């Protein structure tokens, strides 16, 4: 058999559209992992990894499918890192990835519906399903003896899914959700949302949104008007940028995001800063991990054929094996080459369960003195 000289990974994210502001950091995260592997130059006995970007638009299933078609049948990519939004992700999966038998790892599609999607074993995600996070968030609140909360979520499958999961868990645990109100991203003015939330009242405000979208607008407005002073921040809301933007007011707010007791996140952030992008941006770490997993699975399988390496994704992601952190991809490749097992931890403590989604180990954080501090793990 000919040696493999080139591996091509498609990066399909919403470069335009509602998520366009967080996507550049995500793409940069994925490309960081790829650059790392290329620097090592040892993948599959010396193959170079190239990338091809495509625009998922986040919202338009038709355009996303066409773009994916271009990646898979035009650019002949071996795997896809993407997509970002759950809607287009499932469209690409069904319309392009499955028919062509191409592996897809999404860094940010968290809709519970994707857990049971028919995928022929081709689909994975480095973000956990929202169902799990709802339970974790309930625990965090209950431990702090907070039982009366207001809830707002971004009106998409992520926000709604998370809000529903949380509300169910929280009420089952005896808590009260005074109001569960959606907010639309891509607006600037959130005073009416905050007015409604304030009128309903609650000890804290749970904001299931994005750091640079409506979520931020809501927090800013709530602080300014004195509606709430403590916020609960799930994964989409945890980011240094938010802390920097809001400043003092966020002190004391808390939340959780995927992560284990590992140094991976900090390493990744340092690497990102070095590479010139914001490593704390939502799903940047997940993107790094998604790309890394694709390449490591290839190495483990000794092949860049999706049909072959799709069965190795879970192996490299999970224990047993040597733990692999960001910046150690070269080492991982060596280990795999040597026939050893690895346990990829990466930037977000990846642990794949079920049909190939992140297990949902969460890191509980609190904002103190303008920094995100870890207070525990769940």
């Amino acid at each position, binding site marked *: 058999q000919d040696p493999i000289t080139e591996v091509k990974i498609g990066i399909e994210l919403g470069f335009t*559209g509602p998520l366009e502001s967080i996507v550049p950091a995500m793409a940069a995260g994925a490309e960081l992992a790829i650059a790392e592997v290329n620097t090592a130059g040892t993948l599959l006995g010396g193959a170079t990894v190239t990338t091809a970007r495509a625009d998922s638009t986040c919202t338009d299933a038709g355009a996303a499918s066409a773009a994916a078609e271009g990646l898979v049948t035009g650019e002949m990519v071996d795997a896809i890192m993407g997509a970002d939004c759950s809607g287009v992700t499932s469209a690409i999966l069904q319309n392009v990835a499955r028919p062509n038998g191409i592996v897809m790892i999404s860094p940010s599609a968290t809709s519970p519906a994707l857990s049971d999607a028919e995928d022929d074993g081709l689909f994975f995600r480095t973000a956990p399903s929202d169902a799990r996070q709802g339970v974790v968030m309930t625990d965090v609140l209950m431990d702090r003896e907070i039982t009366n909360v207001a809830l707002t979520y971004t009106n998409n499958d992520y926000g709604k899914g998370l809000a529903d999961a949380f509300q169910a868990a929280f009420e089952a645990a005896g808590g009260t959700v005074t109001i569960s109100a959606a907010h639309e991203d891509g607006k*600037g003015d959130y*005073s*009416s949302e905050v*007015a*409604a939330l*304030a*009128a309903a009242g609650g000890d804290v405000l749970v904001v299931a949104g994005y750091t640079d979208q409506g979520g931020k607008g809501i927090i*800013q407005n709530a602080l300014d008007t004195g509606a709430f002073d403590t916020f609960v921040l799930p994964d989409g809301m945890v980011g240094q940028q938010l802390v920097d933007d809001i400043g003092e007011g966020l002190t004391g707010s808390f939340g959780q995001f995927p992560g284990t007791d590992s140094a991976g996140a900090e390493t990744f952030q340092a690497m990102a800063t070095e590479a010139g992008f914001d490593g704390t941006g939502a799903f940047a770490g997940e993107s790094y991990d998604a790309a890394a997993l694709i390449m490591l699975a290839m190495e483990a399988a000794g092949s860049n054929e999706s049909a072959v390496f799709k069965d190795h994704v879970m192996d490299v992601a999970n224990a047993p094996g040597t733990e692999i952190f960001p910046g150690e991809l070269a080492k991982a490749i060596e280990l795999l080459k040597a026939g050893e097992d690895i346990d990829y931890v990466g930037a977000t403590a990846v642990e794949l369960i079920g049909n190939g989604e992140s297990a949902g180990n969460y890191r509980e954080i609190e904002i103190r003195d303008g920094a995100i501090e870890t207070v525990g793990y769940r």
Partner: protein
Amino acid sequence: MEFLNGLVFLTNFVVVPALAYGAQLAIGALGVTLVYAILRFSNFAHGDTMAFGTAVTIKVTALLVALGITLGPLPTALLALPVGIAATMLLVLGTDWLVYKFYRVQRAKPVILVIVSLGVMFVLNGVTRVFIGVGDIQFADGARFVLTVQQFKDATGLDEGLAIRTTQAITLVTAAVTVAALFWFLNRTRTGKSMRAFSDNEDLALLSGIDPNRVVRVTWLIVAALATIAGVLYGLDKSFKAFTYFQLLLPIFAAAIVGGIGNPVGAIAGGFLIAFAEVTVTYPLKKVLTYWLPDSMAPDGLVQLLSGDYKFAVSFMILLIVLLFRPTGLFKGQSI
């Protein structure tokens, strides 16, 4: 006391924000309405013109701050605003010369111009993003509040607080000044009247010795100024993001139309109507009623007129209701 608390609560969460938002919409809608009245088309590129002007202002603000020039308690962006306005003026004049003029000379149907403005919108959309990026940018500096919740509580001893942000105060003052200046200009000055004449009957304006090119130029200049001011005020009060400004187009159009498109008074009324409607229609009265009603009657539910889910659609529902009963808007607008 109870009553006062309720009142303050309502003011803090409804009146103040809606006033500021309404003022921003109103200035935006004024721009749309002027283009409509004088150049006769619905300018879909207006949102992106706002974004462009704001983007330039942001760049200049950054430069000023880097140079150590600030305005003390006021946002530095106010200092940069004239530059932003000037740049936007150049932009729209350039666009007019390059694009719109051709169709004006050809006397194209308004809908052609609408579609042309759609093309301009696409281009401008891209240009702005390439120029400043797609991210979220916060550029307000200086003092954040004129009055904070805590200050208010301390001063009055009430349970509820009232906050007024600097940007909200600036927005209202600027809006008032801008609108007054515009009205004075349109109704009192020769140039203003000639613009109205031109908007009414282009040929006859010509026969009265009015220079059409000058009218068009002045219109664009005013529109550029209005767009930049609206954009910067909005960005100061919230934050800047290219996509948000594109989205803003819908409420701005709704405001212009509700008021009666082509009618400046209507644009302002429309702006405030839409803003207040968005805040109040889905507003849960629970807490206010708890203050105002005797304890025994305090409500259990949220007491919402309309479920919050539909908040996004509220401005359009208002729009439809108004149009059904007054088909040309609140203040009679022009209709082609």
